[in-house]
């Protein structure tokens, strides 16, 4: 019988704990607002993970990891079209292009990246099917769940903190007016540069993430570090600005400028001066 339930009542950490301690074999299906995920296990070890039924082919993963060139990937796609990843892996190993450990490392990383994403899911449903296994021909691995649970929990805490620090991805960014260090003197990673290149009050953080194909976790982490370094500043979203009742909607850039600019209250100058004089007397 399939185990079923709600992620609000029984979270990912508890589910993985259960699979680990009961040394379960089968596949766990998760459905949430964030997407759908399939995790497969053999005797309590994680062997496969797939998000939204889509996953990048092994050659593409190897290219991203710098193990294959784009030309090599194109050649593989031409000559081995339709062949399962496992066959491609065997061919690459037999031809001496890659060592088995290179492939294992890349597949492990891809599996872990997928499973860490679901740690932040706290709503939706789960279903564990003990008879389901990964699709035929897919590369599988074998990862002990203890470390996954530990690392996932650590990331979850970090995720919660990042969400706390940066709750609104519809806010935009602008360059700090007076950065403490000139941009050219700061060592940025390629991903940070990619984000920097989109900094503009008209681009929301969510849009920057989409343009750079980054997850919410990645973009929050990068934006948080850029904010901490004083390189960029937040421009609150229109929703956050809570424009006065009756105010017409404005383009994002104009609204952003208004948000950072304070306005004087609706009183006359001489009234404020009276307050000052009186308080001085007290």
């Amino acid at each position: 019988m399939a185990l079923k339930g709600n992620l609000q009542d029984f979270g990912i950490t508890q589910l993985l704990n259960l699979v680990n301690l009961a040394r379960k074999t089968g596949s766990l299906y998760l459905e949430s607002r964030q997407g759908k995920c399939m995790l497969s296990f053999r005797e309590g070890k994680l062997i496969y993970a797939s998000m939204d039924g889509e996953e990048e082919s092994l050659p593409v993963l190897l290219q991203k990891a710098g193990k294959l060139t784009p030309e090599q990937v194109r050649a593989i796609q031409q000559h081995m079209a339709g062949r399962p990843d496992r066959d491609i892996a065997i061919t690459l190993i037999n031809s001496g292009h890659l060592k088995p450990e290179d492939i294992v490392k890349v597949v492990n990383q891809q599996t872990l990246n997928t499973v860490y994403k679901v740690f932040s899911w706290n709503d939706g449903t789960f279903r564990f099917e003990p008879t389901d296994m990964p699709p035929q021909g897919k590369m599988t691995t074998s990862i002990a769940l203890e470390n996954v649970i530990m690392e996932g929990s650590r990331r979850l805490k970090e995720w919660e903190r990042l969400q706390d620090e940066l709750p609104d991805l519809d806010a935009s960014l602008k360059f700090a007016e007076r950065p403490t260090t000139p941009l050219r003197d700061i060592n940025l990673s390629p991903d940070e540069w990619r984000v920097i290149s989109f900094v503009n009050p008209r681009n929301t953080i969510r849009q920057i993430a989409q343009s750079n194909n980054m997850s919410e976790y990645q973009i929050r982490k990068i934006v948080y570090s850029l904010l901490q370094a004083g390189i960029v500043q937040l421009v609150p979203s229109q929703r956050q600005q809570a424009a006065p009742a009756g105010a017409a909607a404005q383009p994002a850039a104009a609204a952003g400028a208004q948000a950072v600019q304070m306005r004087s209250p609706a009183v006359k100058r001489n009234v404020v001066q009276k307050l000052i004089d009186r308080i001085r007397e007290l």
Partner: protein
Amino acid sequence: MQTLKIVVTGPFASGKTTFIQSISEIDVVATERRISNESERIKNQTTVAMDFGRITIDDELILYLFGTPGQRRFDFMWEILSEGMLGFIVLVDSTRPETFREARRILETFRSYSPVPYIVAANKQDMPDAWPAEDLRIVLRVEDDIKVVPCIGTKRESVKQVLLELLYAILEIMDREA
């Protein structure tokens, strides 16, 4: 009769009630209750709705000081209290870094209610482990054009200075707009 309102906000136990008591000409109308939550038992009583102080300016003008409840579960009161405010003061207990993040959140929330001028008051500066006001500026990420003023909420002169700094900030913005 014209009435004006300044809101004093800040995290739980940052000293808002004491701040208002130090300057109000009437006994502060405090709506305090004994604290029921053990995790918040830093002090025995806390404000559950608002504090209310008054300074009469002249026959025609009264300034009210409203202190917001510091506990998060009463934050539904904040927006109501912020309506029509002249400006606001974010009072921070400089000795309790664990409240700084909450202070920043409160600051952002009030800023979203109304674009009126505000200042940050680094309270309890007489305590030995108080963080300097300028360090608070950095951790709270307060922009350079916003004042972060050292404060001792138990001392009337210090409270006066904080209020004056807010009023000066209002005048500066008026002059800039003129």
